[in-house]
């Protein structure tokens, strides 16, 4: 589903080159739930933005759903983002001017879908996240957990091949975070491929597989003392 091979991302200024990702490799199979973990500045978010075609990469190869995305133009990348990828952001990223229904509808409109089909998908997605009764509410009228559920509904409505979640519970209290995590697990059980970026080992532990990034490279957790210490601390805490 998602395969990066020797991928690199370099940010260049006149005086310095900074590798956000270096010789990075990952292979996510269809139906997997993968957590990408790592400390701040390790390159997790860069990985996510490249995986979601929000940014281009400098070198290497990236195959998404069997398509080499390196040569795609901006329109083609937009189309893939719209049709194959569902995003769940830490800050929810709902559009504050639009109500719940209209927020979920936005990506479907860009797909040029007919109104009747859009409505059906929106209702299905909102029922799936338990917010079918809040159609006319604006984001500011919802709790953080509810906003994240709307964001998940927006991601699900387009029936994406891949869900990318960036710290999906990072802005939520424990109870709300648990609810959102359970929802993601339910969605995964129904067959969705999910890649979740998190720095929370507890959340990462609920994924099928963890990929750890340090200094822009995938590392084996067993050989990384820092992770061992963090894991030990979290298991005792």
């Amino acid at each position, binding site marked *: 589903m998602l395969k990066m091979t020797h991928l690199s991302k370099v940010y260049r200024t006149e005086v310095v080159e900074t590798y956000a990702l270096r010789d990075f490799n990952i292979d996510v199979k269809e139906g997997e739930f993968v957590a990408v973990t790592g400390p701040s500045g390790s390159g997790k*978010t860069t990985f*996510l*933005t490249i995986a*979601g*075609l*929000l*940014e281009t990469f400098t070198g290497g190869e990236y195959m998404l759903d069997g398509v080499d995305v390196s040569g795609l133009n*901006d*329109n083609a990348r*937009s*189309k893939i*983002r*719209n*049709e194959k990828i569902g*995003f769940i*952001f*830490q*800050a929810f*990223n*709902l*559009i*504050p*001017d*639009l*109500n719940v229904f*209209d927020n979920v*509808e*936005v*990506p479907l*409109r*860009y*797909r040029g879908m007919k109104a009747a089909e859009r409505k059906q998908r929106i209702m299905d997605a909102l029922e799936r996240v338990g917010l079918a009764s809040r159609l006319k509410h604006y984001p500011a009228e919802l709790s953080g957990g509810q906003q994240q559920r709307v964001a998940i509904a*927006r991601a699900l409505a*387009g029936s994406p091949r891949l869900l990318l979640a*960036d710290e999906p519970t990072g802005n939520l209290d424990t109870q709300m975070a648990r609810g959102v995590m359970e929802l993601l697990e339910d969605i995964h059980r129904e067959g969705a491929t999910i890649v979740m970026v998190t720095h929370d080992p507890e959340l990462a532990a609920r994924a099928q597989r963890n990929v750890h990034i340090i200094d822009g490279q995938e590392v084996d957790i067993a050989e990384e003392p820092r992770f061992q210490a963090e894991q030990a601390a979290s298991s005792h805490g």
Partner: protein
Amino acid sequence: MDIAPIFASLHKHRTPVALIVLEIALACAVFCNAVFIIGQRVAELGMSNAIAESHLVVISVNGSNPDTARADIPRNLAALRGIPGVTGAAVMTSIPFGQSAGVDGVSTGPDSQVHPGASRYMLGEGGPRVLGLRLLKGRFFGPGEYADSTLRGGMMPNGHVVIITQSLAQRLWPSGHALGQQLWVGSEKHYAVIGVTADVARPGSSSIGRGSAHYAVFFPLAPDPAFTQYVVRSAPQNRQRVLHAAEAKLHTLAPNMVIKGQTFAQIRDQAFTATRSMAWVLVLVCLVMLTVTAFGIVGLSSFWVRQRRRQIGIRRAIGATRANILRYFQTENFLIVSLGIALGMVLSWGVNLYLMKHYELPRLPWHYLPVGALTLWLIGQLAALGPALHASRVPPVVATRSV
């Protein structure tokens, strides 16, 4: 199209939207009426005047001796006719587009309810031919009618015949039977209409309402001190030479008179100086108004693009192409401008009613409204294009940034 969500978004920003809508409405109202008035003024510049303008020069004389004028005029005319290239010369009391020598209330009888104001042209013998009046019905004055008509009885000629313009004839006798009728001037004097000419502009007609700009009556008059205009006819290419020669000739014959010669083209040009200036001022007002409106749209659009940068990034992240973003902002602008235009149409109508009531402007023809609407739509789209292009270049990765 994203019209419904865009309306929803605009609804959340009512105050700035209302302000820009009001600005556009005001611009629409001013623009439609100003363009209409400019059109009226431009039409006035080309006001019809059925005389041989391109053949005529006019020498105005002041300070003639009233005691000798009746003898001097035939002498002066003979001298002017002797200038090489001159094909005719005559005297008048006033000329089209020149200074008025009198306006009378005319009617079909003492009891008539219709008595429009008409300008009085008194012509010396040969005047109709020199002017090139186009007779539509009847006849010109005969030599005896000139001789019999003097001002010895007062301000009005004591003759018995007149020629009137077609517009005045239709105003007074709409059924079309002006010839042979009695034209009353005031309630005491009346004259038989012996001819109807194509429309000749009135003196000062640049400031007279369009409906009555051609209401004129021609009286025959024997040589009289009231004649202050020598009209000299020649081929157009000889005008300047004839003008200088005629001025020189009259200077020689009457050294004490103040003499000023002009071609008729110069007279027309001067008559519409104020009209032209007014038209240019209105053009300037329109340009300033539209520029201010365009800057208002640019300012608001730029502000909204900056304010919604993250929102644009989110839209890009969930699948919007650059074209989608561009179209969103252009559509948003179109909707705002359309609201402004809708309000502006009502305002235009109101402004026009006010101008009709207080400044005798005609009703605004409906086709000025779509012209105004198209202009504002175009300006709106052009003004919003820069900020919209800027918005379309916001990268999708902005959605992942917290600041």
